[in-house]
């Protein structure tokens, strides 16, 4: 059974006892789920994954795979397989040997059975032709496929991926992304996938765990993470171009920013009253695609200066300036306003995020702030 339960796990490296690499993280992964751990560099993603794999000792807490507590169990006995960022293929072995090596060591399958499994996996990954080459003679994408194949042949109950695509170029990365997704659809194996690329996380996962500085920030489906970020960190980390942020002060039903004001509706104000608890300093967050260009003089709009227009294929990114604060707007490709002019920007209250300045908690998200979610850094 491919469930993974992580309970109050904590990790401090012997070599560097000052830094808590992972701090009291708990979450569960369902059988067959594709869970992505995402976060900036050094946030503890790899550490978490490597504790599941058994490559690092667990300083505190428990990890269960299936029904079994695996703290202290040797990596090869955990029924997991891992794909590393730089693949970690054995350079002196052929692709075939790379894939069969683990089976030869840990199972008592006959040579024929092993070869059959290897060939099946190779077929699945489309690298049958490459089986007798050494990793050094393979392209990045082929190496990636072999590394994944090496994990597949083990038929583990959990796949672990540590930034498996980050060494590939953009196009290939995009391609391998769908390949991995299809693979997981086919095999249905529980997968834990680490990446620092929020786009990868958003597109591939059933659920996403966002970590920062060793702490779990939010866990949920891509939509939840995108639409209802629990705190400023999550809101900022996910989405490209990133969410626009403005410091505002709540004044009655008016959010007063630098160079603009925004009226909120009554229902929003109620919510604010309920959760803001007297706090009146917020960060207003609004995603670039939720901003539209309104007619000059329309109500509840903000005046902004258009600096740069970047076409990216189907869309245009507008780089705007609101009284010295920078603001990104994403508009369809047909909308091509002239640069160096003043425009009126509008956005819908539904897309508005309000984060308490004190602790970064999004007071409009989900059920409202809860004690469980840590504040953003």
């Amino acid at each position: 059974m491919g469930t993974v339960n992580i309970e109050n796990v904590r990790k401090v490296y012997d070599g560097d006892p000052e830094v808590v690499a992972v701090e009291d993280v708990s979450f569960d992964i369902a059988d067959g789920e594709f869970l992505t751990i995402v976060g900036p560099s050094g946030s503890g993603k790899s550490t978490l994954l490597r504790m599941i794999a058994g490559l690092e000792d667990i300083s505190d807490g428990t990890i269960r795979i299936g029904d079994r507590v695996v703290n202290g169990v040797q990596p090869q006995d955990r029924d997991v397989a891992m794909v590393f960022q730089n693949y970690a293929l054995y350079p002196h072995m052929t692709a075939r040997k790379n894939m069969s090596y683990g089976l030869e060591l840990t199972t008592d399958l006959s040579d024929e059975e092993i070869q059959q499994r290897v060939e099946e996996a190779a077929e699945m990954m489309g690298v049958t032709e490459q089986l007798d080459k050494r990793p050094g003679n393979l392209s990045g994408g082929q190496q990636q496929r072999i590394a994944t194949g090496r994990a597949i042949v083990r038929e583990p109950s959990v796949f672990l991926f540590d930034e498996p695509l980050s060494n590939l170029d953009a196009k290939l990365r995009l391609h391998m992304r769908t390949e991995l997704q299809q693979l997981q659809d086919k095999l249905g194996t529980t997968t834990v996938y680490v990446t620092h690329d929020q786009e990868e996380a958003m597109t591939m996962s059933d659920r996403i765990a966002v970590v920062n500085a060793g702490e779990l920030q939010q866990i949920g489906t891509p939509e939840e993470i995108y639409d209802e970020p629990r705190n400023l960190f999550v809101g900022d980390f996910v989405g490209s171009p990133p969410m626009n942020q403005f410091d505002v002060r709540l004044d009655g039903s008016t959010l007063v920013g630098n160079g603009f004001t925004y009226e909120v509706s009554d229902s929003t104000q109620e919510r604010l009253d309920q959760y803001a608890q007297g706090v009146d300093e917020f960060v207003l967050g609004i995603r670039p695609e939720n901003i539209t260009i309104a007619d000059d003089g329309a109500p509840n709009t903000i005046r902004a200066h258009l600096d740069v227009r970047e076409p990216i294929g189907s869309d245009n990114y507008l780089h705007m300036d609101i009284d010295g604060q920078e603001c990104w707007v994403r508009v369809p490709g047909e909308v091509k306003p002239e640069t160096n002019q003043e425009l009126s920007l509008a956005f819908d209250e539904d897309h508005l995020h309000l984060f308490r300045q004190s602790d970064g908690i999004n007071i409009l998200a989900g059920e409202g702030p809860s004690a469980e979610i840590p504040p953003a850094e």
Partner: protein
Amino acid sequence: MGLRKETIEGILWSLPYLAVFTVFLVWPAVKGLYMSLHTYPNKFDLTETEWVGIQNYVELFQDPVFYNAMEGTLLFVAVSVPALVILGLVMALGVNRDVAGKRTLRAIYFSPYVLTVAVVALVWGQVYSQSYGLINYYLGFVIENPPGWLTSPDLVMGSLAFMTVWWLVGFNFVIFLAARQSIPERLYEAARLDGATGWRAFRDITLPQMRNSVVFVVMVQFILQFQVFAQPYIMTQGGPSNSSDTLVYYLYRSAFSQQQFGYGAAMGYVLVAILILIAVINFKVIGDSNV
């Protein structure tokens, strides 16, 4: 035009070394080849020469002293080279682990390498001495009449080889340590997930990954140890009972004591042939063993 300029530049930049190399290494070697095909009626005037063709070589292969020296050399190589390589490897793998005081260990292991052979001989003469030596003083508590390390025909080559290992193993150690440290840790992590630890990891990851340096070290040690000379020359003069005679020592005696330079040079070229043969075998056997 670009090409010509670069060619000229390339040659100019090579010239200083090539000049020195040609004059002080290639030319003497060529002269040596010439000498190996001649005899010298007047040993003190090497301008008088007499062409003898391959006679020096023919004589060499009929010379029992040559065979005895060859035997001694092979014995020395057979003991010292594996020991130098294996011990160097063991030391490197040990120090690579999580041990306290790596720097100190590294310094101690490498330090004998900086000694000159005369000092090594001096020191080990004291250590090996049968009745006054360090080893036998302590061994005397355990067994009666401890052996003469340099004076027993059965032990002498082994003793010289052991001393040589002490003297030179630090070089191999440093090279192996560096090679071991450049193996990416992730390979061992992958191996742990594959269930390969301990001996298996050593056999399947460490050794193949260090193959290049092993080839290099084996090669260098063969070349060096085949030319062993100073140890028997200083410490045993080839004795006892000629059991520590070696090829280069014999070459040296032929050239200097006997002033038979042509004969010595012939021996030198036989040695060159042997070394080239070993180099080829080495690269064939270890070099591409697992293609």
